[in-house]
Every structure is written in C-alpha cells, then in structure tokens.
C-alpha cells in the first residue's frame, strides 16, 4: 500500500516535471532520481507511452466518423496489421501510402472528403491509380500530378482546390490538406473557414478567402488573392495575418520574406477620445509603471503589469497596495471595450510611463443588471481582459500566455466564431446568475508591452435570441453601462461593419442590455 502511494507521489511529480512546474530544487532532485533509478525512469516512460496510446485511441474514436469499421476490417491482413500497428488510424493511413510499394489494394468507404471535378494530364492517387473526373478522394489519399492540372471540391465545406503540375499533396481531413510539392489555389466559402494548408515550412489557415500556396524544394510561398489568411509563426506562438495582395515566402533554410500590403487590414481604433467620468458612468483609471530607475528590477521579468495586478484580483479588488508604485492617467469613463487601443495610453493621459512594461485599465463600480437571470461574457483581448462580479472573476479573455491564467477562471474558446486576431476565436466565461440587486463589477483590460492592443467585451443573456452574422455567429451585446453618444454610436456601427467585412467578429448594441451604474465610485 505504502509502495503504491510512493509510486503515485512520484507519478504526480513526474507530471509536474513534464509540464515544467517544479521548483528548481525539486527538478534537480527528480532528475537525480531519474538518473539513478531504473524504476523511476520506467514510470516516466510509461507516461510517455500513455500519451502516445491515448492519442492513438482518441484518433481512432474520432476517425470513426470518417472511416467506417467496415473499411478498417476490410483492410488486407487486418489482424496482422492491427497487431503490428497498434490499431492506430493514423498509422493505417500512413501504411495505405507505404504499402502501395508492396502492392496492396484497399477498399474505400462511401464517406469521401472531396470529388475530382476535372483533371487534365497525368494524375495518380497513391502513385498507382489514374485519376479521372468524378473520382472520390478519401482521408490519407496522396495525389501526384506530373503534368496538367486537377480541380477538386470538398464535400462538406465546399472548398475548391485547383492544383497544377508538378503536384504532390495529401488529403488529410475535411479541413486540412498537406501540400508537399506544387501549387494550389483555394477558394474557401464561409462554411470552409478554418481550412488549413500545411507545407513543410508553415501552416496556413484560411479565414474566408481565396489564396495560392506553392511548395517546392526551396520552400513555400503564400499569396492572398482575396480576404484573409493566418500563417503560423515558426514557433507556433502567434499568427501573422495576411490580406489581399500580401505575399510571404518561407525558405527551407528558415529565411522568411514578407511582402505585406501597405494598407494592412486591422481593426480600427474608435476615434472618440476617452471621456472623463460623470454621475452615470462606471469609473476607471489607467495605470502603468513609472518611467524611472526604480523599474530597473523589472527588466528581466515578463508581463509585469498583469503580475502586478494579480493580488488586486485575488483579493476581490480590495487590496490596492500592489498599485501604489504605479503611475496613473486621467480618470476614465467606461464606454465599452472594442477595437484597437494603439494610442489609448496617450489619449488617456498616461504620460510619461514605462511603455516597455505595459499598461492596464481598471474599471470599478456598482451596477444593476438590465434583468435578473443568467449571463455570460464573451470576448478576447490582446493581451489582458478579465471581468469580476462581486469580487469573483467570471471571465478571462486574455491571450494564452497571460498571468491571469493562474487564476483558473473557467473559459471556453470557440474557434468557429472569429474574433479579432484570436486564432482560438471568441472566448466565453461560465454562466453566472444575478437578481435585481446591484452587483460590484470590476473590469481589467490592458497591454503587456507595446501598442498592438485590441479587445472586445460582449455579454449574452441566457434565452435571448441574437441576430447572427452571415457566417452564423450570434451578435451578442457589447457590454455597456450607459448608452453611447450619437457620435460613439456611429463609430460603433462603422467598426462593426469593418469587423464583419473582415470576418473579425461582430456585436450588437441593445438599449435594453445596459448594466446601469447605481453607485459610481472614484478609484
């Protein structure tokens, strides 16, 4: 029993070790143990094997929607291959390709990914069968064309692909194609948004567009003909958005050449400057580190502004001692969080401040919900966004590397609902319930270090029917505490059109959705 407990403790520690969550001393101890104890290494190995096996099992379960059981069982020598391959769908797909070299033929299920509309020249599936118009293409199929062209249409999404010789591409799934060599042009309708083209150098995710991808021995190239695509950075940390006319080249040697269109599409900043608060406003203030030598100690840390705010959030917004060393701008009136905030610190009077350590706005007050019921927040910010009700965080819509993640706030991401530059789409918080009484609200929104800030904060009331965008995204209400002025309203409508045109999200402005301020509070 004791032995089991010891093993469990070690297992738990190894999980932390793998996540990089051990303190230095603990890490050194566990590494010492792993170097000296075969049993400890076996346990570590078993975690790695579990990871591989669980992923396999997950893939097989997931693949059942596209690969019928009949198809797998009809594979030649299935029992041998199940044993030899561990039953993994991914491996079976790999082997479909490899085994052609030793002459196997497989039967196809009726669930196909795409259909060949037209082909000219010499085109083959998996190096063997000649392709003709009307042929169906399945997950794992590899198309090669030595001359001519091929035109295919995806079954579910309607994505249209035109490929020209020499071409070598692999049909991965209904949302993904692997371009090994050649050039393809894609036209992606709204239902195909999120379609991914993978080249040896990069992953290109379509955000509703037409674009061309070329892969060769020298590297790959992306040209956007219309709309917008997102290209993953080399370290997967962020995406570069490309619009009509943009061209990017990615060399096999790691060289990158961006030719970005001068009028790059990005979300606008609302022109109206931040107003001072009045009796009906939710009050706020903008804070940043002082531009002085006292900040030298921060140089080696990252995201210091959000870390500085953590004690305030953790205390239910009571402990303000962490703000004492910060400088602040003018008092602010909350008028929604929406759009770009490039010049916001200057316009809000936060000058001078240590720009390299970022800024944060904190809005605070007592508000009354428009109706009793269940609500949840939607949104996203690059970098930080957090909302608390009665001192308890109910929404965190920050970038994935924000220190606010430490607060373990329930959050769901919705990649199918595009939102600004968020690849994971809109984030939503957990539902929370309110009565007719006033509640304390705190909103924290800010930037880690530069001026590329953007954000949006919306609210949904359970049971309300919201209009939808043409791509089927509900237009939840912009979270407001008072009606916008006429000028603000006009700006919001223009910004919404810009967002919808660029598939960056949307929102509504509802008169009956304002959370009125009942007790304005100076901060």
């Amino acid at each position: 029993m004791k032995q089991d407990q010891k093993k469990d403790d070690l297992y738990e520690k190894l999980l932390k070790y793998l996540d990089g969550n051990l303190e230095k001393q603990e890490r050194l101890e566990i590494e010492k143990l792993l170097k000296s104890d075969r049993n400890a290494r076996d346990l570590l190995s078993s975690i790695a094997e579990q990871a591989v096996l669980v992923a396999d099992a997950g893939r097989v379960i997931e693949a059942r929607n596209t690969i019928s059981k009949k198809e797998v069982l009809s594979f030649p020598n299935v029992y041998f291959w199940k044993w030899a391959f561990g039953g993994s769908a991914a491996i079976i797909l790999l082997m479909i390709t490899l085994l052609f070299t030793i002459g196997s033929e497989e039967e196809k299920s009726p669930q196909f990914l795409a259909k060949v509309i037209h082909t000219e020249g010499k085109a083959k599936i998996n190096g063997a069968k000649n392709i003709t118009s009307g042929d169906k293409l399945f997950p794992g199929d590899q198309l090669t064309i030595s001359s001519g062209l091929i035109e295919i249409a995806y079954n579910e999404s309607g994505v249209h692909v035109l490929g020209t010789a020499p071409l070598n591409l692999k049909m991965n799934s209904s949302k993904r194609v692997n371009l090994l060599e050649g050039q393809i042009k894609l036209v992606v309708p709204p239902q195909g948004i999120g379609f991914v083209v993978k080249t040896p150098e990069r992953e290109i995710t379509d955000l509703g567009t037409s674009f061309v991808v070329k892969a060769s021995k020298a590297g790959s190239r992306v040209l956007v003909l219309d709309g917008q695509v997102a290209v993953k950075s080399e370290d997967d940390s962020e995406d570069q958005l490309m619009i009509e006319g943009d061209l990017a080249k990615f060399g096999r040697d790691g060289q990158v050449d961006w030719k970005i269109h001068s009028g790059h599409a990005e979300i606008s900043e609302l022109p109206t400057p931040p107003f001072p608060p009045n009796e009906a406003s939710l009050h706020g203030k903008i804070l940043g580190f002082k531009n002085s030598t006292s900040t030298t100690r921060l140089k080696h840390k990252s995201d210091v502004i959000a870390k500085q705010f953590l004690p305030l959030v953790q205390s239910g917004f009571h402990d303000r001692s962490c703000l004492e060393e910060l400088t602040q701008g003018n008092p602010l009136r909350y008028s929604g969080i929406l759009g770009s905030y490039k010049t916001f610190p200057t316009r809000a009077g936060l000058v001078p401040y240590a720009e390299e350590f970022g800024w944060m706005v904190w809005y605070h007050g007592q508000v009354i919900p428009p109706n009793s019921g269940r609500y949840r927040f939607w949104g996203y910010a690059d970098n930080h966004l957090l909302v608390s009700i009665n001192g308890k965080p109910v929404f965190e819509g920050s970038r994935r590397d924000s220190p606010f993640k430490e607060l373990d706030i329930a959050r769901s991401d919705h990649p199918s609902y595009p939102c600004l530059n968020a690849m994971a789409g809109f984030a939503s918080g957990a539902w929370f319930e309110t009565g007719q009484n006033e509640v304390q609200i705190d909103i924290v929104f800010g930037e880690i270090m530069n001026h590329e800030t953007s954000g949006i904060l919306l609210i949904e009331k359970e049971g309300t029917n919201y209009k939808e965008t043409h791509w089927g995204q509900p237009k939840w209400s912009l979270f407001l505490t008072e009606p916008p002025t006429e000028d603000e309203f006009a700006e919001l409508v223009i910004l919404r059109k810009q967002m919808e045109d660029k598939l960056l999200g949307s929102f509504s402005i509802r008169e009956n959705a304002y959370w009125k301020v009942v007790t304005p509070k100076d901060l």
Partner: protein
Amino acid sequence: MPLSEKEILRFLMQSRERISAAAWLVVKDAHVAEDIFQNTVLKAVTKDVSFQAEAALFSWAFITARRDSLNWFRKHRRESVGIDEDILTLIHHDWQNDHLNPKGNRFEMLRDCMEELPQKSEKILRLRYFEGLSCGEIADSISITLDAGVQKALTNSEFLKKMR
C-alpha cells in the same frame, strides 16, 4: 544479410509505441510525436540505409526520432522545459535492453476502456494526451480550480495505473 523493407516496416511498427514515446518525451505533443515517428519510418524505407539486425534498426530509429524531436523542440519552443539529455540516453539504454518484450495489447484495452470512462475522466485524458494541454490548461478548460486536481485525477486513474 540486411533486413528487407518489409522486415524494417514490421519491426518499426512493433516498436512504434516506444519510438513515439521517445519523441513525446521531448516534444510533449502526441501528434508531433506521431509525425516524427512517421518521418522516421519514411527515412528508414526511403533513405539509402541498411540494417543488419533489429537492434541496430531500433537504435537508429530511436536516435533519429530523438534528434528530430530535439530539432523540432528547438525550433518551436522559446523556454526549455525539456528533459535532461542524459536521462533520455539512459531511457534509450533501458529500452534497448528490453524493447523486444512488448507489454501486451495495451492499445486495444485502452481504446475500449476510454469509451467507457466517465465523461470527465475521458475528457481529462483526451485534453492531456490528445490535445496536448498541460494540467494547468486542462484545469482552465474544465473548471477544476487547481491544476493539482488534474494531476490527482491522472495519478489516481485506475485506468492509467493498469498501463504503468
């Protein structure tokens, strides 16, 4: 006489779990580990290399997968939370000695069990090993308040214990 292409394929598929696991220990992403394994297989059958014995093939595959994993890791991660390379070498030696003793048909058992797991447990497993999230990120996504909760769930899983 060198191993034939068919023998190479068959042996690599038998050793797939271990070679992928070696890659996973570095990249911590089962899908990337799978890609690295597939590349290793492709290299073994398409490159001009020959193997006189299975042990030599296993050693080559392990080192190739490990080198590709380290390259991937260096290319994709900013902060190193990788495993000490000496430990990886020791694991290589451990496995070299017992790679021909498979641990039974654990995949079949696992897949069947996964479908019968309670929803939350199945979700934790999938998020951890299929989606590749850390315990902290899983805690975020399923509203467990502490990532210790996720670690405990994984540690106490009878299902995973059977696989140790």
